[in-house]
């Protein structure tokens, strides 16, 4: 750790991991409800579990992004954070607001929560991923503004690098596009069009800038490759992200009442969306192969490479398989979508946050790298979680293919629930894969507590 104020990243990372555990537990509850329908009913209805599962994901990734920014920007700007106190205050505000919102989901019926928080004054609730009470959304905006101010001032007053500018641009986009969550017209078609301006322009737009920036930062640090080379790659990759991803929004405008020309625009541009992800994979492996130094943190290298590969598979390949409109006509809103969603979020965003945590956390705790024992356990957790996620995705894809066939393609289409019963074997296997994911997560958390008394890992003296 080069600057004292980087230390504020630590509570952000710890909170991120804590909420990640909660997300997985609720995922397992939902997976169970897919096969044992009345599991935990009426205490935790499926819609509540899903809201908790997806909202925890979003919140812990945001904690991860903010922690990443607080860690990276001082090193990039070569000066301390503008205000570590503000960063710490915003941490507690965000954590308490997030916890209260989740408790609200769990403790009162959603309609009561809407009433308690005066949703009618400015109705924004009850839309997928944007279920938070309006007051929470306003809180998110306040936290985002304070955060951007803090990071922006640090960059302005210090060295301006491509990495920090791209990160700032991504975070700014994140805040700006979130404002569309306050637009909720009665006309459902308009509602849906601009709902995607939050959801799509986040995950297939500005979040990828944040992803690229964090990946570039970690690669510079662990490979020692010249910054000029890495920053050039970063520009080209994020250019391709926006060239394909912005009009790629069109793949959400096929069947929601929007004109048919979106079927062409959406198909053509989103078919190109795997390209930037493939470039990211080539980039990461290329830089690691051309490394000028050996970094003792081997685990961080594994997360970074794993992120680039899994993001390409999950977002790129699994996105492509159902993005062309003639295919999507049959797969839209099926388990194929769920399969893609799981691997894409895991590969791109979960893994990039775990990459920066893996790189930064040993330093935040006072050394360059963890002990060998700790790193070995951390790498086990990578493989357990990643292989489990591959199987979750494959089982959901199997379920999705059968669902699409039985319900939408076959000569005598069958009702939704009749089809669900027939594909339950795949849901059981998905749940078992989910349990293995949990074991991986337990290994991950444990890796922070083992081998901390043993010496830090060293680079073998024989290597160049």
């Amino acid at each position, binding site marked *: 750790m080069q600057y004292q104020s980087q230390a504020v990243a630590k509570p952000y990372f710890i909170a991120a991991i804590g909420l990640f555990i909660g997300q997985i537990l609720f995922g397992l509850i*939902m997976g169970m409800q*897919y096969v*044992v*329908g*009345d599991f935990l*009913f*009426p205490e935790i*209805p*499926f*819609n*509540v579990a*899903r*809201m908790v599962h997806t909202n925890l994901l979003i919140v812990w990734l945001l904690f991860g992004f903010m922690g990443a920014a607080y860690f990276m920007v001082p090193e990039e700007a070569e000066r301390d954070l503008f205000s570590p106190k503000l960063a710490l205050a915003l941490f507690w505000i965000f954590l308490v607001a997030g916890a209260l919102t989740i408790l609200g989901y769990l403790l009162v019926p*959603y*309609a009561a929560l*809407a009433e308690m928080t005066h949703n009618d004054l400015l*109705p924004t609730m*009850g*839309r*997928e991923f944007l*279920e938070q009470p309006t007051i929470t959304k306003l809180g998110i905006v306040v936290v985002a503004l304070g955060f951007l101010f803090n990071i922006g001032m640090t960059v302005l007053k210090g060295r301006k690098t*491509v990495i920090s500018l791209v990160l700032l641009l991504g975070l700014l986009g994140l805040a700006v596009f979130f404002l569309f969550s306050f637009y*909720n017209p*009665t*006309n*459902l*078609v*308009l509602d*849906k*069009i601009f709902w995607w301006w939050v959801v799509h322009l986040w995950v297939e737009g500005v979040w990828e800038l944040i992803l690229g920036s964090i990946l570039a930062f970690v690669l510079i640090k662990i490979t020692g490759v010249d910054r000029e*080379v890495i*920053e050039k*790659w970063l*520009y*080209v990759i*994020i*250019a391709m992200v*926006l*060239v394909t991803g*912005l*009009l790629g929004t*069109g793949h959400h*405008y*096929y*069947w*929601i*009442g*929007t*004109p*048919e020309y979106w079927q062409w625009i959406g198909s053509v541009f989103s078919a190109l969306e795997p390209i930037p992800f493939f470039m990211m994979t080539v980039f990461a492996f290329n830089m690691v192969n051309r490394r000028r130094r050996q970094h003792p943190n081997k685990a961080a290298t594994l997360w970074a490479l794993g992120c680039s590969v899994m993001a390409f598979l999950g977002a790129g390949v699994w996105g492509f398989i159902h993005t062309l409109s003639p295919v999507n*006509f049959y797969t*839209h*809103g*099926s388990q194929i979508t769920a399969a893609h969603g799981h691997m894409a979020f895991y590969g791109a965003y979960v893994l990039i946050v775990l990459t920066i945590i893996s790189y930064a956390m040993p330093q935040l705790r006072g050394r360059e790298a963890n002990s060998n024992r700790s790193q070995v356990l951390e790498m086990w957790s990578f493989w357990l979680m990643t292989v489990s996620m591959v199987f979750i995705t494959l089982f959901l894809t199997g379920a999705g293919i059968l669902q699409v066939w039985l319900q*939408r*393609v076959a000569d005598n*289409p069958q*009702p*939704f629930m009749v089809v*669900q019963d027939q594909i339950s074997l795949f849901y059981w296997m998905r749940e078992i894969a989910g349990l293995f994911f949990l074991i991986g997560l337990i290994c991950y958390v444990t890796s922070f507590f083992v081998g901390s008394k043993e010496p830090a890992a060293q680079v073998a003296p024989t290597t160049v």
Partner: protein
Amino acid sequence: MSTTFTKSMARNIFYGSAMFFFLLLVGLVFHTTRVLPERDNRENITPAVALGKKVWEDNNCIGCHTLMGEGAYFAPELANVYERRGPIFIKAWIQAQPTRVEGRRQMPQFNLSEEELDALNEFFKWVNEIDDANWPPNIQG
């Protein structure tokens, strides 16, 4: 990448293409909002439809169901439920929940008033009549 391709070229490509494609997206979405009245059935948005959408949102129906294919994949598609089941069935179904059939997926009891149930039906009827390029492929959703 070769040395003839410099970082400032890469930067210019990024900013240039980002601006170009963002403006293109804005332009196309603006055009979409202009031609939308031909497709979105807005002339039939009554106060009852608006109340129906409020009931839909206030009870987080999207947490289990899809609507025009978007939402959760735990329970049936509802954009065409009006056509598939009809208003009488929909109302009776919601009132009868939860079924408490052992091992079956359960829908909570939302304690909706008659007015709210009728409004929800009006909302489903309106959604069903939006021109959405003939999705879903068949009545099963």
